[in-house]
């Protein structure tokens, strides 16, 4: 699959033209528009065995933006992003119906190689998962051998990815120590660096801070703010403040359905749906 690195939909002017002011609330509908979407799903349905985790999700995800997926445990938010890079099917008994378009390609078309797709759509998991037998540097560069690539400028790639992940200054003197020897927050940034080193167009983050303390969480959030300039991010979080802080758009999932989707400001200031309001005001979840 050859996908150019241009972002045809990522023009700044297009985004700013879509920002409307309504009753003093800034509204931006770029992410909701089909023509501005980098990912579009249609009737996306997912199962684990006989348990249906997603019930027909239609959503457009904007290029060059941060989209947060929120919702209570078991609402299908993790399943949703795992469908986007076809990691859902790695679990035995899991299956998917409906379609996901990444640019013009149907991700679930029979001729799509999920291995190649995952090189475009990287992923960071809930629990930091550095490879225990590898050093910090080998962890950052793990994508190279795993993709069968042999590159000469390894140092350069490692440094760039670690700088992008705001980890370079903390680990530059201990690059040969095991990846598991650093703190949990550092390990998670190491995993982000590892995902960035293969230069994906989209980064999926599945509750990346749920195993971290508040300080480590703040660092990851700062990092998301920096990364949004170069990469499209879709982040699953159960932390509503986090969604409000880091994202441009927020989607609220409940019981496998997409209940509400709008720009983050609207979502948190004036939700349309009463279930969304109940959730974000803490009445359930």
């Amino acid at each position, binding site marked *: 699959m050859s996908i150019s690195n241009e972002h045809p939909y990522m023009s700044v002017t297009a985004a700013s033209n879509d920002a409307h002011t309504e009753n003093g609330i800034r509204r931006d509908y770029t992410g909701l528009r089909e023509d501005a979407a980098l990912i579009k799903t249609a009737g996306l349905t997912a199962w684990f065995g006989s348990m249906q985790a997603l019930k027909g999700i239609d959503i457009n995800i904007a290029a060059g933006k941060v989209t947060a997926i929120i919702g209570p445990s078991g609402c299908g938010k993790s399943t949703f992003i795992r469908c986007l890079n076809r990691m859902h099917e790695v679990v035995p008994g899991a299956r998917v119906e409906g379609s996901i378009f990444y640019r013009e390609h149907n991700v679930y078309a029979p001729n799509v190689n999920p*291995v190649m797709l*995952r090189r475009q759509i990287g992923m960071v998991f809930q*629990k930091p*998962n550095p*490879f225990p037998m*590898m050093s910090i540097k080998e962890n950052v560069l*793990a*994508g190279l051998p*795993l993709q069968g690539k042999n590159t000469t400028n390894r140092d350069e790639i490692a440094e760039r990815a670690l700088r992008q992940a705001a980890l370079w200054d903390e680990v530059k003197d201990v690059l040969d120590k095991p990846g598991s020897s650093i703190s949990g927050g550092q390990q998670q940034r190491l995993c982000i660096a590892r995902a960035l080193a*293969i230069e994906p167009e989209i980064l999926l983050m599945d509750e990346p801070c749920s195993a971290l303390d508040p300080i480590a969480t703040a660092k990851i959030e700062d990092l998301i703010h920096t990364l949004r300039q170069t990469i499209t991010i879709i982040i699953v979080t159960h932390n509503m403040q986090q969604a409000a802080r880091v994202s441009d758009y927020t989607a609220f999932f409940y019981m496998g359905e997409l209940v509400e989707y709008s720009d983050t400001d609207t979502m948190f200031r004036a939700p349309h749906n009463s279930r969304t309001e109940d959730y974000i005001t803490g009445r359930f979840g």
Partner: protein
Amino acid sequence: MKTHEADIFRKRSLTERWIAAVLFTCAAVSIVVTAGIIAVLLFETMDFFGRVSLSDFFLDTQWTPLFADKHFGIWPLMAGTMLTTLFAMLTALPLGLSIAIFLSEYAPERIRRFLKPIIEILAGIPTVVYGYFALTFMTPLLQKFIPDLAGFNSLGPGIVMGIMITPIVASLSEDAIYSVPASLREGALALGSTRLRALRHVILPTAFSGIAASFILGLSRAVGETMIVAIAAGQQPVLTLDPRVPIETMTAYIVQVSLGDTPHGTLEYSTIFAVGSMLFVITLTFNLIALYLKKKIQRGVL
């Protein structure tokens, strides 16, 4: 009605204390017996080395304690054991590891749950059956490809011994690979890796100590295995690395003397304790290494 306070001060019942005592005795017996075996082995071995010097034992290249011209060089027996062990491991490693990789990475859960017990049944076949399998099937089969293979040789029994150890290697390696956290497997796949590369670069290295432990336990089984080699490898202690000719392993020698008419208490008879001690030291070393590696995986990884 009895009060609850009265209950908590009641003594543990006599039966319970009796059962604890009986169980403790059973546990103690196994330790005492092991200690006894080691003591006898050590005592008899000291007696042997009182009559035969260490240099004769370790430097001589002939092993002829049962003949008039006696030599006590351990190396012919060592060479026999090493040869059969080598062929066993050359068989068991690739076979066992392949089975382990298939079961843990590729087989659907249903097939895994069905196949694993079957493979473990292989480990329950009496070794005497394997011995005759080597003598009457494997060696004649190999003779079709290697015409000058003798009826007793180290190759055939070595391979059969490998088949015997394969379940140990497969089962323990499979445990090690299966216990690699799914998060690492997913981490590798999410980086755009094929399953094979994930296996090679992440999963096998992570499971390495467990796989190594399974190899070493298999090795220790091969070194100590007796029946197969006693039946099919011959009883000729010659210092050779030729897999086609009859040899004698350390274990087969012990069988030969124990079953033969060598009188107790003689120098000839005490040789088996010296050889037994050697075996004991070798297998103990391997088992300790395997134990260390297993502990390492229990601590490590997660």
